[in-house]
């Protein structure tokens, strides 16, 4: 068990999920102010991309870009100066499906756009093109624990750079037949603008690794979202943030390892 001083203020958030299209909407639901009306996640079109690029990107990239943009705008931050950490359990399933279909057919030619969109850092690449950010950008994946991996990497990076880091965690369902082998119930994205130097706002701190069970959501339908979308494993943390409460949450990470995170409201 380790403890350490990795912490940062949460300056702003972005959230897209089933039944909520923004952090204010998600916040109202998670704080208990508004009843949740579950509905399939609607992935918006990012206006940050030039039209030519917007036509090229798939829903997965749109999801990540829109969540990130919401957090940046909410804080009034300058995206061109921000380092970014993306975290996702899988890649662009629809794009991968199209490539695998072509490769299994008689004509194996695949389009150049399909291929460059197949890199796992596609969202990071398009984010850089859209914002002009030349700071470091990365994407980490750890299956169902990708959110925890992203949170660790983002806090460690903010600590090393001594500057704000935008964390964007996102997952999108695969199409069939891949979906049968990897179930992700719906699209979900959350973005946190983490600022190690800021004094205002709720402060998130890494407690350490533990083997306690992960915190669940009290509402069974919301718990189903948490447990069926890797990026939604952060819902217990979002709930604390929505309620402006200090507290500790245990987040899912690896099969034998959970992440202990505390929040000072």
């Amino acid at each position: 068990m380790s403890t350490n001083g990795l912490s940062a203020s949460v300056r702003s958030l972005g959230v897209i999920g089933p039944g909520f299209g923004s952090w204010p909407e998600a916040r109202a639901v998670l704080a208990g102010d508004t009843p949740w009306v579950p509905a399939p996640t609607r992935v918006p079109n990012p206006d940050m991309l030039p039209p030519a690029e917007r036509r090229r990107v798939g829903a997965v990239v749109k999801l990540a870009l829109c969540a990130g943009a919401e957090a940046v705008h909410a804080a009034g931050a300058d995206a061109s100066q921000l380092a970014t950490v993306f975290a996702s359990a899988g890649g662009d399933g629809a794009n991968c499906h199209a490539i695998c279909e072509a490769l299994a057919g008689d004509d194996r030619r695949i389009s150049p756009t399909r291929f460059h969109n197949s890199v796992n850092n596609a969202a990071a690449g398009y984010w850089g093109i859209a914002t002009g950010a030349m700071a470091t950008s990365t994407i980490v994946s750890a299956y169902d624990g990708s959110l925890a991996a992203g949170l660790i990497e983002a806090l460690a990076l903010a600590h090393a750079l001594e500057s704000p880091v935008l964390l964007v965690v996102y997952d999108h369902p695969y199409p069939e037949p891949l979906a049968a082998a990897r179930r992700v119930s719906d699209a979900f994205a959350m973005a946190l603008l983490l600022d190690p130097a800021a004094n205002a706002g709720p402060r998130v701190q890494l407690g350490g690794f533990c083997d306690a069970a992960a915190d669940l959501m009290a509402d069974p339908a919301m718990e189903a979202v948490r447990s069926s979308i890797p990026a939604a494993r952060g819902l217990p943390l979002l709930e604390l943030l929505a309620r402006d409460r200090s507290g500790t949450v245990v987040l899912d990470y690896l099969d034998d390892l959970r992440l202990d995170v505390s929040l000072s409201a």
Partner: protein
Amino acid sequence: MKPLLISRYTASSCIGNGVDATRAALADGRSGLRHCDFETVELDTWIGRIKALDDVMLSPALAEYDCRNNRLALLGLSQDGFIDAAIDAVRRYGAKRVAVLLGTSTSGILDTELAYRRRNPVSGALPPEFHYRGSHNVFSVAEFVRHAVGAGGPAWVISTACSSSAKVFASAARLFDAGLIDAAVVGGVDSLCLTTLYGFNSLELVSPEPCRPFDPDRAGISIGEAAAFALLERAPAHPPAEAILLSGYGESSDAHHMSSPHPEGLGARLAMEQALTRAGLGPADIDYINLHGTGTPSNDDAEGAAVSRLFGSATPASSTKGATGHTLGAAGGLEAVFCALALSEGLIPGSPGTRSLDPGIDIAYRQAPQRAALRHVLSNSLGFGGTNCSLVLSRAEGRAR
């Protein structure tokens, strides 16, 4: 940054499995490229394929991870006593203090490509034996290696195309700084698949002949596969002179284009500058640069411009892609190991395949291997999406003879 000790390292690629074979091939200037004979691929290109990969068997306990990429990981782990060194680190520090951070671009996607040929003709379903988590999933290789060495600390895969397995060194350094870990298994594993061969072909970026980095007639990349691992630990106060250290890293984004580098290599230059700053070094301190040097016209132009502007035209530099091919997500780790070998042997690798030097690129490019006293070396890894990472590796003291 506080330098980290690279207490063990190993590499397997088409020039050989393990450091002895690798060292010999680099010293001889040998290439492992061959005309493409992979799977059913009918492309006029050259590849760096590892032989005997089909013979690698995963232990029954880890059978669910069986795929070409994880077989390659196991082949790599089994060289140079690396797996024993990693298990020993787990014993010394405790499982939860040992991280596994690896890079790959395509993971075990070959299994999915092949499964798509065997879909149920009625339902379209993939065959029942298809196992996503242990093969295709991005994290598969780190999960497999974590189990294979018994590590229980933080783990993830970085998949940022061709900078993936350089960036894991930077991630690990930050986890050490944060006090979260005492050792890290880092590196990269990337294996041949149809997506990258046909994909780079669609971009007209594969060469019909063995790749020729920094040659005026270069015509693209040769795709290879590799597994490379390094074991990182905190450096003792007084490491032995011959100890190899990770002394700096730098990361940046081009913010320019998905598949073309910034024309002046601005992002690459930022990464190199940051790596030097973190290492507390100036350009003149670097004795050798292992270039990304893919052999595409645009990469070598952009990277050459960035190196020339930062280092001038006297620092010896070469790309080893003519020997190994471009091993994509494994390239950063593989070339970090080449840098470690260069430092320990006093060897500047050459550039098999390169026949003459592009007169438009003003750097001290080395076509033939040569002996040299080296103290600090730098390695570049640049990838699609405009992702850049540079590493500085150093000898603790003195220079190899």
